[in-house]
């Protein structure tokens, strides 16, 4: 070849020549060399900052972003030094260098102008304040689900629209074949008119949690961890993965798992941009100990067109019932069952509703959209509507009464007590 430039095609041609010439010898060229041919040049990669690298930040999000050829993780950030060093090692090992920067304050990450996008995997009470700050700094954002309140979720939607940011609520449901297929069949009328949707979420917490105050461990910036949440003494059972059992930081299993399966319900029901008009929930809350989210519950919602949504605690499941049959599954990502069975094989035609998905998952979808500037598959508004269902369910359970909801105004009808629970004040100096 002239001037010794090796193009991808040229390389492949040469390689197939070698394979023929060396027929009879074992393979010499490792397959990763072919993978390298598809690599994206450094200048075209999307640079990422990771905020929150605990179990989910590393296990799910870092693990999914690192293999993407068009992404480059530049920094990791966490209030816990243990998390920070673990994540930094993983990134450096992957790239074979020592370039990954570490920060304990997320504001240092979003201040860097060489970062295109951030991945936020913190406890829920930090999701919206961090996402909004990142958007204002011109970053695209993928953030773990869910929000903490209805009002802050609305603020997030408005900010993303105003600053023209690409934003993804990080859940895999819309890329999971079973849920996509189930909702597509429902949306195309294969079970007739939907009248009832059953959503089952896991129960828990199963322990009360130890409220005994303890010294804050070395290397853990507890004040930053609390951030906008009310001050409370440190105890191990409060922080990291267990935050989700405390209403100050989360909404319990209802918001944690609701972000998955309630989204499926809204997707199949074609109510992604609105919500139910009535809610009545009964929940069993922990009385003693640290944890105060509902551990067992049954909540009934009604949509304006009469469709009923019934949310109970048990095994993660989703089931749609219609005038001509039902479809559903029992267990996370479990195979679909339906009546009549034939609908499971029914093809979706070109003139029917095809739902937006990305088989590569939420991280792949986010990177694609950062480039195309299109909306991701779980954009701010759809997430807001989904999490709202969980929040109003919690409010109904906490107040112990039936409530009327106006999805257009995002307010309860004639109930100021309930309306006051749609937002929370933040601990100074944090605000949105």
């Amino acid at each position, binding site marked *: 070849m002239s001037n010794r430039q090796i193009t991808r095609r040229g390389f492949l041609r040469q390689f197939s020549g070698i394979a023929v010439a060396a027929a009879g010898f074992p393979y010499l060229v490792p397959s990763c060399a072919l993978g390298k041919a598809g690599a994206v040049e450094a200048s075209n990669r999307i640079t990422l900052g990771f905020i929150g690298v605990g179990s989910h930040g590393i296990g799910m999000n870092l693990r999914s972003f690192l293999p993407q050829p068009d992404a480059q993780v530049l920094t990791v950030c966490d209030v816990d030094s243990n998390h920070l060093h673990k994540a930094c090692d993983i990134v450096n090992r992957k790239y074979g260098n020592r370039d990954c920067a570490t920060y304990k304050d997320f504001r240092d990450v979003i201040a860097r102008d060489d970062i295109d996008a951030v991945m936020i995997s913190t406890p829920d009470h930090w999701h919206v304040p961090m996402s909004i700050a990142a958007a204002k700094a011109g970053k695209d954002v993928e953030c773990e689900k869910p929000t903490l309140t209805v009002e802050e979720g609305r603020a997030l939607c408005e900010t993303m629209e105003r600053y023209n940011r690409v934003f993804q609520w990080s859940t895999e449901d819309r890329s999971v074949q079973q849920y996509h297929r189930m909702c597509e069949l429902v949306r195309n009328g294969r079970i007739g008119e939907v009248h009832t949707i059953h959503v089952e979420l896991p129960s828990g917490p199963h322990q009360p949690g130890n409220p005994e105050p303890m010294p804050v461990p070395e290397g853990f910036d507890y004040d930053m961890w609390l951030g906008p949440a009310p001050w409370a003494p440190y105890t191990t059972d409060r922080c990291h993965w267990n935050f989700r059992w405390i209403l100050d930081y989360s909404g319990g299993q209802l918001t944690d798992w609701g972000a998955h399966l309630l989204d499926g319900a809204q997707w199949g029901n074609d109510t992604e941009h609105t919500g139910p008009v009535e809610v009545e929930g009964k929940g069993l809350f922990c009385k003693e100990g640290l944890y105060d989210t509902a551990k067992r519950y049954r909540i009934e919602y009604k949509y304006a067109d009469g469709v009923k949504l019934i949310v109970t605690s048990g095994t993660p499941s989703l089931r749609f019932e219609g005038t001509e049959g039902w479809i559903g599954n029992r267990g996370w990502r479990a195979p679909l069952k339906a009546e009549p069975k034939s609908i499971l094989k029914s*093809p979706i035609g070109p003139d029917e509703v095809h739902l937006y998905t990305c088989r590569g998952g939420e991280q792949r979808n986010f990177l694609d959209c950062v480039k195309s500037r299109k909306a991701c598959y779980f954009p701010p508004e759809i997430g807001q509507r989904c999490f709202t269902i969980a929040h109003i369910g919690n409010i109904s359970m906490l107040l112990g009464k039936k409530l009327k909801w106006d999805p257009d105004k995002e307010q309860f009808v004639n109930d100021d007590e309930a309306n006051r629970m749609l937002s929370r004040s933040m601990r100074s100096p944090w605000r949105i």
Partner: protein
Amino acid sequence: MSPTRTISRRGFLGKGAELVGAFAGLPYIVPASALGKAGNVAANNRIAMGCIGTGNQGINDLRAFLRDERVWIVAVCDVNRESAGYWNNRIGGREPARRIVEEHYAQAKASGKYKGCAAYEDFRDVIARDDVDVILTALPDHWHAIPVIEATRAGKDIYGEKPLSLTVAQGRAMSDAVKRYGRVFQTGSQQRSDHHFRRACELVRNGRIGKLHTVRCGLPGGTPDISKMGSRDKPEPVPEGFNYDRWLGPAPWAPYCPARCHVNFRWILDYSGGQVTDWGGHHPDIAQWGMDTENTGPVEIKNARGEFAKDGLYNTAKQYHFECIYHNGVKLIISNRQRGGVTFEGTEGWVWANRGRHDAHPKSLLESAIGPDETHLYRSDNHFRNFIDCVISREQPVAPAETAHRSITICHLGNIAMRLGRDLKWDPDNERFINDEQANRMLSRPMRSPWHL
């Protein structure tokens, strides 16, 4: 394996792999390409295509599909065996097409030989083959409706050349058939896969030029002699190997002459609508995309002026101008005297696009980013691959039948208004002219027996 010694496909492949393992050290036996290695698609996963109509555009399209590794062309079909008289007097017909296909596939064979592309004269033989998954049709316009509708009934997906139809009634029948049989249909309006047009339409749809008021489509005029056969317009004996009766098909009978057939057919109203419909599958289609009126149409056709070719064989409009008024007051001007391409004019600026270029005023619009909350139009950067993508995913391609039907309807309406020489009122919901039965009769044409829709 079962005792009956049947060899299933998977069983065979499994055995094949064992053989390869057992004979490690000997030269390869199974070519990697057949198993789908190194970026190839496994033979049993490829989409089998039959190409109906292999003149100039048919061969262009065929070459494009040969480049798609997911497609395997198994049949070609043309009423002409082989002759010159196509674009610039080039060669066309089923035999040249077969040679192109077989030579292309032979390159990948160790033997350097490949025979496996059937050549038919009758399109029904292609459609009848149950191993054919998709059909490419690239025929004169008067032959667009029948094979497409037949193919939908046989469960084939179709890439059909533009303009979609010869008449409004035929287009409606085609779109309905595609929908009824759940087929994927891509119209050959490849400008929809040109990012310049998509970008222009996205700017318009997102209000970057303010409120849209006028759209101008500048198309070519005249009846240029593309085949270089235009002077041979006196009756001649039909050449050997050309089934002229089948070429005429549903069109009225007329004596054969070389100037009538192949590329220049488009200047005769029996077979086409002239430059207006030939280009109507392109720029007015883009206009509809930008105006967001893809599933409807104008309500009025005004100021239609056409100068039709008179002396000789050709009779389509050489010079033309007509204005289409939409229900929201937007005016679409289609003329051969406008700036070539599509110009969208709004209260705050304009955007113009033509093949491979676009421009805007104010210039800052060129840099304007379309945000995640705005309208993003269907993105396709390769018209042919987009079709195959959709054959696999069962989604709508970028230029589906209904959209193409609505676009070409505008051009049929313009031709009718020019021939009648009067303003017409159109009802896009019922696809009828209002209070004008003479015009309504021109929305369809009878077909020569035995052909019918």
